[in-house]
């Protein structure tokens, strides 16, 4: 303003408050931000603070100082180590952290030998800074104006958001009981603290990610050999039979391509089973295209051949397993010819593979979500897991190895068990379900109000609408809730339905402890390398502040600590690692290594099943009314005359779930999501490459682009998971797609699905539906 204008008292005091300087007319004019006249007195930045400039500190005047900071990636849940170059508080480069084994090797001796060569990160990890500095990030809490899905929002302060959520949740608990709250979260994201929040609040309905990922695999291996996530030792194997796990093309732990290359260099052979010729199939010695959902039949026929020819490891079976005779009886008629009809794999191929597998040691048999996303997944997975048991190939170099881990010790609370049962049938309707819950059941409970009505939902970094199968039902279900809070870095289809949207942090802005997925104890620290770009609270800070505001305490008056670093410091210090957070950070790469890979641990401890042995026959399943033997049952939603093709989904390493689709660096690699159709099928139907087509199931109908290829089973069509956004950023909605005008965001897979879960594990069924193709 001009020099002679009148400066109000209010401006004076504001000036002093902001600058910390004593007011003088000169200093005011010289230093203050001097927003226009009355705006200074009244008005209002996003968070109502004033003062644009102050005197730069000596440090700020020295530009260009950079440093490298070790932390862990969270573009997916893989927790790979990264080393971030930060210059003047800005991330300029992300490199691998070779001290973290997740980017190097999963066997301790291999890790020691290889780490000097450096670690690895994937395309997502390399694009981390794009997500950090994405201008479409949510920047401040926003409250919806008008009816749900009105699309109008009002920016509110963090304090106002905290007050609102606290008030709503307390009111909910008072009027409807704590169980009326459903809270869900993505994985590797302070799930410990969120779980504690729900315990203290009293709601049993806390869900995490795995139910949408790999819980059928978890249930299968756990039922057979007592470990829900044994890990592959590709580097030291001679023969790998892998079912439906594109570990080279949809890489989660970036060590995977390296350890497969190492194994291959030492002469390992891989047979890869999948309806889709993935990058892993390309690097295998043999690709076995299989009908979706029939992996169990293939595994049983392999078992048949092994037992018929007496190739099993009799000594191992005698000492470490139960129920072999009943298994032998089961597979007696599971001939390769029987399996050929079901799987479409020639009987001669099945015989040959059985022979190769039995004759080569060490060998490993593994499976992931290919067989795992079907209505018969737990039994199929058990049949697969039993092949390793038949041949004595567990917990030895080059086989499937049980992991040893050292984490933190969780804070103990003195609380009564929640009065209400979970709505989703975890442990009851789904007797072998994982602690992550059963999403389709939660969704159905929202719709039916049974066993009781859920009334509020908190969705943490979890795009429920796009992630749970049957998109239409998901939307209807969320509309039944009275109150929805979404915490995420970006708007999403779920956030559009929310009452309150709270900005999430990026992983380079927050703390966490990662217990790494390698066979030996390795625990790494995720730390903030920059301050919040949006100047916001982290989710952790928000939840802790919320717990405090709501006065959540246990019966002894114990509550959550004030800060998350304090929370994890306690966990680390009081747990088996016994180090403080600072001591952890001082370790090379911020990674604690707690020992070497150990083999044949079962010789000392047995297996962690009820019988302490590998269970070919499962009494615990029998007790729950399930088949104790892994007999083959046809998938429920297999194709029909009306919907004659199998539709499956698949993933690729440039994306995680549905959440990375607004990242330009990642989307420019594949802006469209064409439907893969076998060339023979396409020719028969007169379908052309690059054209539009309608894809229809009993549950949905959408347009897609066609990609004619040899890379898929002739009876199967496939879509990559995660595309098809309409409520996410511009890039996710298809701005880079220059070809396909009829569905520029790419076709979503979830709309075609029935939206059910597998009966034993509760795994969401993502890959099982019949579809028809209609010319567009």
């Amino acid at each position, binding site marked *: 303003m001009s020099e002679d204008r009148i400066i109000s008292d209010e401006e004076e005091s504001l000036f002093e408050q902001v600058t910390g300087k004593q007011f003088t007319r000169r200093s005011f004019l010289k230093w203050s931000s001097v927003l226009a006249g009355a705006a200074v007195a009244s008005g209002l930045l996003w968070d109502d603070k004033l003062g644009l400039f102050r005197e730069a500190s000596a440090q700020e005047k020295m530009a260009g100082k950079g440093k490298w900071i070790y932390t862990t990636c969270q573009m997916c849940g893989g927790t790979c180590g990264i080393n971030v170059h930060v210059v003047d508080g800005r991330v300029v480069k992300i490199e691998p952290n070779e001290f973290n084994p997740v980017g190097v090797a999963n066997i301790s001796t291999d890790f020691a030998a290889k780490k000097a060569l450096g670690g690895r990160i994937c395309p997502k990890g390399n694009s981390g800074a794009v997500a950090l500095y994405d201008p479409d990030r*949510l920047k401040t809490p926003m409250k919806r104006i008008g009816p749900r899905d009105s699309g109008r929002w009002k920016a509110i302060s963090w304090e106002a958001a905290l007050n609102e959520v606290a008030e709503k949740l307390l009111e909910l608990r008072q009027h409807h009981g704590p169980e009326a709250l459903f809270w869900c979260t993505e994985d590797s994201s302070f799930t410990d603290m969120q779980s504690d929040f729900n315990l203290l609040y009293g709601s049993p309905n806390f869900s995490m990610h795995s139910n949408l990922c790999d819980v059928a695999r978890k249930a299968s291996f756990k039922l057979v050999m007592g470990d829900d996530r044994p890990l592959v030792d590709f580097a030291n194997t001679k023969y790998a039979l892998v079912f439906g796990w594109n570990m080279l093309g949809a890489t989660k732990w970036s060590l995977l391509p390296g350890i497969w290359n190492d194994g291959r260099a030492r002469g390992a052979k891989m047979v890869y089973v999948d309806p889709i010729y993935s990058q892993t199939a390309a690097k295998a010695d043999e690709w076995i295209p299989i009908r979706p959902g029939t992996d169990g039949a293939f595994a049983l026929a392999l078992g048949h051949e092994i037992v018929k020819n007496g190739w099993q490891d009799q000594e191992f079976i005698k000492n470490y397993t139960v129920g072999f005779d009943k298994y032998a009886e089961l597979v007696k008629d599971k001939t390769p010819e029987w399996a050929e009809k079901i799987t479409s794999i020639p009987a001669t191929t099945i015989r040959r593979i059985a022979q190769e597998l039995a004759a080569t040691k060490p060998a490993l048999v593994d499976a992931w979500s290919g067989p795992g996303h079907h209505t018969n997944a737990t039994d199929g997975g058990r049949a697969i897991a039993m092949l390793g048991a038949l041949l004595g190939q567990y917990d030895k170099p080059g086989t499937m190895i049980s992991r040893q881990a050292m984490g933190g010790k969780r804070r103990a609370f003195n609380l009564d068990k929640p009065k209400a049962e979970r709505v989703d049938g975890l442990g009851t309707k789904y007797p072998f379900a994982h602690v992550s819950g059963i999403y389709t059941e939660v969704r159905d409970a929202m719709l039916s109000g049974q066993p009781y009505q859920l009334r509020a939902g908190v969705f943490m970094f979890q795009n429920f609408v796009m992630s749970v199968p049957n998109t239409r039902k998901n939307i209807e279900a969320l509309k039944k809730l009275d109150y929805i809070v979404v915490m995420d870095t970006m708007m999403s289809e779920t956030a559009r339905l929310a009452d309150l949207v709270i900005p999430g942090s990026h992983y380079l802005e927050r703390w966490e402890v990662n217990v790494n997925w390698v066979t030996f104890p390795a625990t790494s620290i995720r730390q903030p390398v920059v301050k919040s770009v949006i100047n916001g609270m982290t989710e952790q800070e928000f939840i802790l502040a919320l717990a405090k505001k709501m006065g959540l305490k246990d019966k002894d008056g114990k509550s959550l600590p004030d800060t998350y670093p304090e929370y994890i410091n306690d966990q680390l210090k009081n747990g088996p690692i016994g180090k403080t957070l600072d001591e952890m950070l001082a370790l090379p790469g911020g990674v604690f290594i707690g020992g070497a890979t150990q083999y044949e641990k079962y010789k000392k401890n047995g297996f962690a099943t009820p019988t302490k042995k590998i269970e070919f026959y499962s009494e615990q399943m029998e007790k729950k009314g399930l088949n104790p033997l892994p007999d083959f049952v046809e998938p429920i939603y297999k194709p029909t005359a009306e919907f004659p093709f199998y539709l499956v989904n698949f993933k690729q390493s440039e994306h995680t779930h549905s959440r990375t689709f607004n990242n330009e660096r990642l989307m420019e690699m594949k802006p469209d999501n064409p439907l893969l159709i076998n060339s023979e099928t396409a020719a028969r139907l007169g379908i052309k490459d690059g054209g539009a087509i309608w894809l229809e199931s009993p549950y949905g109908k959408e347009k897609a682009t066609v990609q004619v290829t040899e890379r898929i089973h002739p009876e199967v069509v496939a879509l990559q998971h995660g595309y098809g956004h309409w409520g996410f950023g511009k890039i996710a909605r298809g701005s880079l797609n220059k070809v396909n005008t009829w569905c520029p965001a790419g076709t979503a897979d979830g709309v075609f699905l029935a939206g059910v879960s597998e009966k034993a594990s509760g795994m969401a069924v993502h890959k099982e539906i019949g579809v028809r193709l209609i010319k567009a």
Partner: protein
Amino acid sequence: MTSIAQTVHPETVARTAAISMACSIGQPGVLKLLSSMYLCKPSRETIAGWMSLLSDDGMGLDELRDALNAIDTASDRILEDLLWDYTRLFIGPYKLPCPPWESVYRSQAKLMMQDAADEVRRIYAAFGLSVEETGVMPDHIGIELNFLALLYERAADENGRQSDCMRIDQMFLNDHLTKWVPQFTVDMEMAADTQLYKTLARTTRNALDLPRA
């Protein structure tokens, strides 16, 4: 500072002088007003504040004054529409049609906090200043306009160092505001639903004497 001064473009000198003449509240005042309109949400109070500054005639800001005068501040609905327009344009939650940061316009990847943010921060530091408000990035349109205003003020205020300040402001206009504000204001003018924000876009461009991109 000497090295920065070498980038001065002679045209800028004439241009800045012309703007100063045109505005009776003074060039720094105009820039601070615009800065405030980008940084502050519209409300009864802020609108009254902005209007009080524009009450005099002959300031070269007639269009902006008319747009403010046309707002019926008694109407909650109109104020809500204005606030939603501001929110949608500069805060979110959706894809921002005119992200108010130089980095987004000038970086290849269209991201926040890229080289431009670093450059302006260094210029502020060279001038002994740092952005106080941690909720606003250094290359926000409101911060850049405010900084330019401070440069003009100092140029007038400190006779001894006038030449230095003039060099910085010319450089700052040339190397920063000129490089992105034309496109930013076009995007904003197209995306804004309300007359106020369409006019603010045009007025910003005119006040800096920048062409339409």
